[in-house]
């Protein structure tokens, strides 16, 4: 056994669909009974799902929540093509072959992690927030979506200095965990900041005391342009930043190099696999 640290880190399970709810904007939340995955999953990791037995390629989907005690995982995905359309047609009681958890998780180092999720990039941020509740960390979450949010937003019970007046809508789950949260969208939605997640983040950062600002680290998952803007923001404030990437993926275990992307390393540019070298990368290595 020459690679004991990586061997047996990913489980293959036939996971029963416990619930599967559709939300406006072709969004779906799927709860799977996948106890071995649930017991090991860390925020930032994903599962590689067989959406249909006739489909040769699995689909990588981020884990939004994992309950080790009850053995389930929650996934949020958007129907964008044939594969996710097949997935959306699967119903409670059916089984999905689930490979996971996979990938390098977010490694939260700073006292004040600023978690930014856009669209189907929201799930890992919810997972990070849940992992940090009741910890010494003081996370702040900003979620953005152009489709209606896949939850019923409600006015936050947590006051936040620096946030524009009237921007009070929050994700109830996060609010219940005592994690401050605000929402942003280009669309007009009540209580939601009309603009980019990074605008809202800038307001929040500017309102912090200089000392507190030095304790912030940025963590983001979402569309590529959003990630680029988040890294720009981090650069502006000279703060560390980690981003989670997506790419078409075949094996999901590091075997095929089909999901490789270019990142900057100490030794110059290198192609790294999103599946096992990522999906979480240092933001400055991806956008420079």
């Amino acid at each position, binding site marked *: 056994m020459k690679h004991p640290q990586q061997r047996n880190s*990913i489980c293959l399970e036939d996971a029963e669909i416990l619930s599967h709810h559709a939300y406006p904007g072709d969004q779906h939340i799927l709860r799977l009974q996948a106890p071995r995955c649930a017991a090991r999953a860390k925020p930032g990791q994903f599962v590689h799902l067989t959406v249909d037995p006739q489909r040769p390629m699995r689909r990588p989907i981020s884990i939004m929540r994992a309950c080790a005690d009850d053995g389930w995982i929650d996934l949020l995905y958007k129907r964008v093509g044939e594969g996710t359309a097949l997935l959306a047609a699967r119903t409670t009681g059916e089984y999905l072959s689930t490979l996971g958890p996979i990938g390098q998780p977010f490694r939260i180092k700073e006292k004040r992690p600023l978690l930014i999720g856009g669209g189907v990039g929201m799930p890992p941020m919810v997972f990070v927030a849940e992992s940090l509740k009741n910890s010494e960390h003081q996370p702040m979450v900003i979620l953005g979506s152009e489709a209606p949010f896949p939850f019923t937003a409600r006015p936050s019970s947590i006051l936040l200095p620096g946030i524009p007046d009237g921007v009070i809508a929050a994700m109830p789950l996060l609010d219940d965990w005592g994690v401050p949260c605000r929402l942003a969208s280009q669309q007009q939605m009540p209580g939601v900041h009309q603009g980019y997640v990074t605008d809202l983040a800038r307001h929040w950062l500017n309102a912090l005391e200089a000392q507190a600002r030095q304790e912030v680290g940025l963590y983001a998952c979402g569309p590529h342009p959003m990630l680029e803007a988040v890294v720009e923001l981090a650069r502006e404030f000279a703060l560390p930043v980690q981003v989670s990437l997506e790419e078409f993926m075949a094996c999901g275990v590091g075997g095929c*190099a089909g999901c490789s992307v270019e990142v900057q390393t100490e030794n110059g540019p290198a192609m790294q696999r999103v599946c096992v070298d990522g999906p979480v990368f240092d933001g400055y290595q991806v956008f420079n």
Partner: protein
Amino acid sequence: MSDPRLAVDFCGLKFHTPLVLLSGCVGFGEEYTRVEGFSNRDAGAVCLKGTTGTARPGNAPHRVCETPGGMLNAIGLQNPGVDQVISSILPQLDFEETRFIANVSGSTLEEYEEVTRKFDDSPVDAIEINISCPNVKEGGVAFGNDPDMSARVVEICRKATDKPLITKLSPNQTDIAYNAKRCIEAGTDGLAVINTLMGMAIDIESRSPVIGNNQGGLSGPAIKPIALLKVHQVYQVAREHSIPIIGQGGITSAEDALEFLIAGASVVGIGTALFYDPLICSKINAGILDYLECQQLAEVGQITGSLRLNESSSPKCGG
């Protein structure tokens, strides 16, 4: 321990099962061991990722995409170069578990020769030369589709190693059996049939190919009937010289594997099927054993080339 009935002698090497994990699908041999329940012991051999003389970054994304019954890939031979593979990767492999086969690629004859020579002086059990990689601008398929060039690559690699030498043939050519014959005459010990077929997928919104490299190699169940016919055709030549074949292309079940063995393969390659079932090897092994029992056969070798052609067949007419 695996069942002795599954053991096969391939180019003088004992494979404890007739399954070979294919180059490009399993990284440098350790990647799939991340999956709980997966073991390299379920395969008779593991072909390592294609290796060149110096490091190659590979192609720009997207490198893979799903197509009906299969997938396209254009990885572009991303690898750290032969020296790094030998110094850093091979020492991490557990040669107790299975046989490891190096996969050699190059842009020039000299590069094929150099990489083969370096692997000859390494612990790998055998060397596969990839004269059919469709995804690099030079070399690869340019050699593989020309029987003269194929033979020259084999000849030069043959001189560079005493290890078993396997030549991976391209299906993207007119007469694969003739190419196989030339490679056998040039000194190959075994043949791998087939590599991927060239294909394309187009995004109708952007009107651009989905694959960054524009075109890629098609694998998966979609190519199985083609691969099977190519194995059958190559076997007609190979059996005269007792050259064994790795039959590969779209195998996803024991039944598929048996078809390739019947067509003339001595062992079968598993690639794309791992992507949707990483634990498929143990299932295929079990299915082959069931077949041996049902057919009252003592070992896998008895299946190879046992095809009974229909007498009324008209081989040159598909209509």
